[in-house]
């Protein structure tokens, strides 16, 4: 007979009980964190009392006392409206920047895998040069060297093909004449119809087996509809021209907006190119071989077989880059583009309390980031392979 185990009567002492230890450890961590926060808060109270600086958000109702170039923002409007204006300027540069950076980055990423030796090396050089430079340097370069120094004065503005006016006062591009709401309505309607056309083409393709060409059809429909509707409504496209030391007509992009946009697009596209390249390489080799076996052309193979699968792989990394671009747009403050950070910096300079103003700015960025990652996660889930 072996000796019976002492288990039944043996009780683990409390200082060796894992459940108890876990609780003790967590409570002590909470306590330490609480002590740190309390210390910080105590310092804050002492310092605020010493310097008698307001800590609430009442400064938002004071008049702003500054103007925002390129908008009809008035000095007497409250700081609150300046923040709203800055918020929309941030969104504007981020939205356009994300679109352009994705487009350019995808093209460069594909070129990076091209069998054409020269094109391949050119794309590689682009990526390696831009990616290893600080973004702030690119931005300073675009602003000080390109826009302010190399672009001509308005009297000698460059007018390529007479459709654009490029000068150090900004860049004017052709734009629709007419109200913004009409434009939005027309774009929305055209979008809906284009979507329906895409669905119809897909159905047609399913029924007959002929190529769908759904993207081509819907894009053409979209732009034709916009053009036709616009001219039918009696509006037109207006070309910019120089009108005595200023540009008239068309849409004028601020020099700082242009510099920020180009710097962000260059920088982010070099990162996106690497992501796209990696994702294309990560698509299973058999997929490309299957496309070859079906005798698809090189462009068909890329468009219908490889890229859709590559983007599924790239989605999380792309989302990160989009978040980075949005956060990096805060560098616009260093070249006086009136986005959120610049507005905060200026109102602090004008005497608003610094801590609440910058904390508010931080919270706005946090919510933009949070919202963006929600959107990215949604698309990620939609694109994800449904596995067992």
């Amino acid at each position, binding site marked *: 007979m072996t000796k019976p185990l002492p288990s039944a009567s043996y009780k683990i002492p409390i200082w060796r009980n894992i459940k108890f230890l876990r609780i003790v450890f967590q409570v002590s961590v909470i306590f330490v964190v609480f002590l740190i926060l309390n210390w910080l808060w105590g*310092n804050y109270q002492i310092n605020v009392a010493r310097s008698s600086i307001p800590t609430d958000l009442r400064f938002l109702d004071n008049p702003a006392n500054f103007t925002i170039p390129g908008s009809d923002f008035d000095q007497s409007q409250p700081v609150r409206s300046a923040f709203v204006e800055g918020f929309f300027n941030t969104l504007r540069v981020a939205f356009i920047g994300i679109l352009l950076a994705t487009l350019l980055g995808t093209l460069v990423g594909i070129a990076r895998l091209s069998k*054409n030796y020269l094109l391949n090396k*050119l794309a590689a050089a682009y990526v390696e040069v831009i990616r290893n430079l600080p973004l702030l340097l690119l931005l300073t370069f675009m602003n000080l060297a390109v826009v302010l120094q190399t672009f001509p004065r308005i009297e000698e503005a460059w007018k390529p093909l007479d459709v654009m006016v490029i000068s150090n006062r900004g860049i004017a591009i052709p734009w629709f004449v007419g109200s913004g709401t009409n434009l939005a309505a027309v774009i929305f309607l055209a979008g809906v119809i284009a979507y329906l056309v895409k669905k119809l083409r897909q159905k047609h393709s399913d029924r007959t087996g002929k190529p769908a060409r759904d993207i081509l059809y819907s894009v053409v429909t979209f732009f034709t509809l916009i053009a036709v509707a616009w001219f039918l409504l009696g509006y037109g496209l207006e070309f910019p021209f120089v009108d005595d030391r200023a540009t008239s007509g068309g849409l004028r992009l601020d020099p700082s907006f242009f510099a920020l946009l180009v710097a962000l697009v260059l920088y982010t596209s070099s990162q996106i190119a690497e992501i796209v390249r990696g994702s294309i390489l990560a698509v299973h080799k058999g997929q490309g071989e299957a496309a070859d076996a079906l005798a698809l052309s090189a462009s068909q193979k890329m468009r219908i077989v490889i890229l859709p699968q590559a983007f599924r792989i790239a989605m999380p990394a792309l989302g990160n880059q989009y978040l980075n671009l949005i956060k990096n747009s805060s560098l616009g403050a260093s070249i006086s583009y009136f986005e959120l950070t610049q507005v905060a910096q200026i109102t602090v300079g004008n005497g608003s309390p610094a801590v609440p103003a910058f904390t508010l700015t931080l919270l706005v960025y946090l919510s933009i*980031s949070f919202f963006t990652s929600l959107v990215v996660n949604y698309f990620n889930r939609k694109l994800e392979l449904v596995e067992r």
Partner: protein
Amino acid sequence: MRPWLKQNLFRSYLDGVLTVVSAAIAIWIVVQIFTFVFITGRWEIVQVNIKLLLIGRFPEEHIGLLLASVMAIAFWIGVTGGAFVKPGAPKRSVLEIARELFQRFGLIALLGIAIVYLAGTGEALVAGLQIVVAIVAGRLLSALRTRVKLLSAIPSLLWIFVWGLAPTSLIWYTLSVSTLETWGGFLINFYIAVLSIVLCFPLGVLLALGRRSSLPVIRLLATTYIEIVRGAPLFVLLLLAGVALEFFIPPEITPDVIFRSVTVFTLFTAAYLAEIIRGGLQSIPKGQTEAGKAIGLSTVRIIGLITLPQALRNVIPAQIGQFISLFKDTTLAGAALSMFEILSIGKAITKQDDFLGQGLIYESLAFVGLMFWVGSFVMSRESQRLEKKLGVGIR
């Protein structure tokens, strides 16, 4: 030649068009760069200000000390460079070694030559030579270690640590005799980057472990910190630190710009580093932890001896990538906190009396950009090499 051309440049008509267009672009860029560098560029703005760009207003009388520190670091890099080389590696000819060295460090050498040339003084040449001699001496000592039994008995980590004492104490001494406020230019970018890397590493590891912890409170705290910091722009954090840091520390301490920026860079990079290390931890198969449990190790030992070392090794390239972006982001401190770093100096020197309104921003920014570009490019190349050498993902 003909078949190569056909294969790589003219496979089809479209390919031919692409080739012609890219050739035109490439030739245009090369011509532009060549004329800028050798013909139209007026480099006297960089020549006159080279010292300001590199070390700011560092006191003249302590430059010898700074050079000694740099030499000690160079020697240390030379000594440690081969510390992990396994004995019995295949013998290679001098030519092969020289070629590999040029591929790896040629860019840095060229940049060094360019700086010495721009400085144009005998002292600069001597300083450059001294640094080269320090590296070579370090390499020789390291080579000696693989041959002499007594030296190769010393564990690698101890070896690295011992030779690291000299540069550390020299830098410490330099800091104590010349106040940090006089440091500027590229020196301060480099110093802030290195200091923040060293400080953020332990915090990043703790946060990563916290986020993977099975204790809900720890996990919540770590996740909240990481997500908040990752959602915030670095530039705004720096601005906030510029005006608000003094509110959160005792009134006796008055923070300077460097304290502010190092605090922000450390806290910021730790969050990103934590996510990278978490990725590494997730890549370790569960069997490793289970094996540790089976032989009765405590949780701390399982992490410290089994999972963490493997995890850190698996994500070396990503970590170096994060450090590269920290190195590049040190320029933000100039714009947000008006620190005297190389990019803000590069902008300021175009407004000097001698150069005002002459449009020399291209020359100045080109030099600043080159410093960052060479640094980041060589670092990322080396990390790829290290990745291959460690055989991550192979087996």
